[in-house]
C-alpha cells in the first residue's frame, strides 16, 4: 500500500491501532476467564488455590 502523504498513512495506521485495541479488549476478557478458571479436578494432592 503506497501512501504519498504521511497524513494518509497516519489515518490508516491509527485506524488499525484502534481496531487492534478493541480486539485485544475482547480477547482479554476471554483469556482472563481462561486463566482464572479451574481445570476439571483429576486427582490432585495439593491445590495451589491461594495463588
Amino acid at each position, binding site marked *: 500500500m503506497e*501512501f*504519498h*502523504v*504521511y*497524513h*494518509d*498513512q*497516519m*489515518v490508516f*495506521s*491509527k485506524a488499525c*491501532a*484502534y481496531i*487492534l*485495541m478493541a480486539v*485485544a*479488549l475482547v480477547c*482479554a476478557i476471554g483469556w482472563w476467564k481462561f486463566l482464572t478458571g479451574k481445570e476439571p479436578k483429576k486427582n490432585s494432592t495439593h491445590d495451589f488455590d*491461594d*495463588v
Partner: protein
Amino acid sequence: MKRRHFLGLAGAATATALAGNAMASGHSFEGYPNSYGVLFDASRCIGCRQCEMGCNTINSENETKPWTTLPKKDPAYFADLKSMNDTARTDSTMYTLVNKYEPQALGGKSPVYKKFQCFHCKEPACASACFVKAFTKTPEGAVTYNGSVCVGCRYCMIACPWSVPAYQFDKLVPYVQKCHMCHPHIKAGRTTVPACVGACPMEALVWGKREDLIHQAWERIRSVPGTYLPHVYGEHEMGGTNWMYISSVPFAQIGLPENLGQTPAPELTSGALGLVPLVACLWPVLLGGIWQITQWKDRKAEEATQKAVAEAVAVERAKAGK
C-alpha cells in the same frame, strides 16, 4: 527539530518502532507527483486586489456547496485600496486577502503587499487535526474541505500555523471557509488556473507543478542577485507547502512567520499518539498485576492472623487444661 523529539528517549523509540512511523524506517513521503501549486512574488504585487475580486466572483457565481460558496461582493469593495493594512485577516466571506506592509527593511515608508490564503501544505495540519476527516490533500495539490462531515470543533483553526481557516460564527448552521485553490472549479472545467492567478495583472502569481515552481523561484532569485532573499518560503516550512513566496524584504516583515520549523504537522503528534495503544496494552497488565498482588497479600495477612489467633487459643486451652 531534534529538540522537538526530546520525549523520554525510551518512549519515543518505542513509539516510533511500534507506531509504524515510516519516517524512522527510511521511507520518506514525497507527496503526490505532479501536484500543482502557486508561486507568489512579493516584489511584483502592487496591491490592486484583483485577485480578491476574481476569487469572490468565481466562488459566488457558481453553484457549489454551502462551504465553497461566498457571498457576492460589490466590485467597489475591491476598488478600495486605502483600507489594506497589516493586521486584517480572512473571514468567512473571503478565501483570500491582500495585506499591506511598510517593512523596516525599506525604512518603513514603502509599501509591500502580500496575498494571504491557504498555503495548501504537503502535510496539512488541518487534515491531521480534524477528527472527522473533513480535509483532504488532493493529488492535484489543493487541500480541500468537506463540510458535510464537519462538526464545528474548530481544532483545524487552532492547528493551522497560519490560522487560515475561517468560521461562520454568525450562522446557526456554521461551516469552515477556506481557499480550495479553485479545485472544484478546475475539476468542473470552469477555469484552468485558480481565479486569483488568472486575475493578477502583474504575474505576481504563477501556477505550475510544485517542483517547477521551486526551480523557477530559485532561477528568479539567482538571475537578479541581491534583489530577493535567498529563500523560497514554503519550500520547507512545516514540511513544505504548495503555495510559496519569494520576497525582497524579510518574510517576517510581510506577515509570514519564520519560526514555524520544518517538521510536518502530523509528525508533531505521531510520537505521542503512538503511545496510546501501548497504554491500552500495558496498563491492564500493571493494574491487574498490582490488584492480584494486593489480593494475595491480604489473603496471606488474613491467614497469618487466623493462624496467630488459633495458636493463641491453643496455648490458652493448654494452660487451662493443666
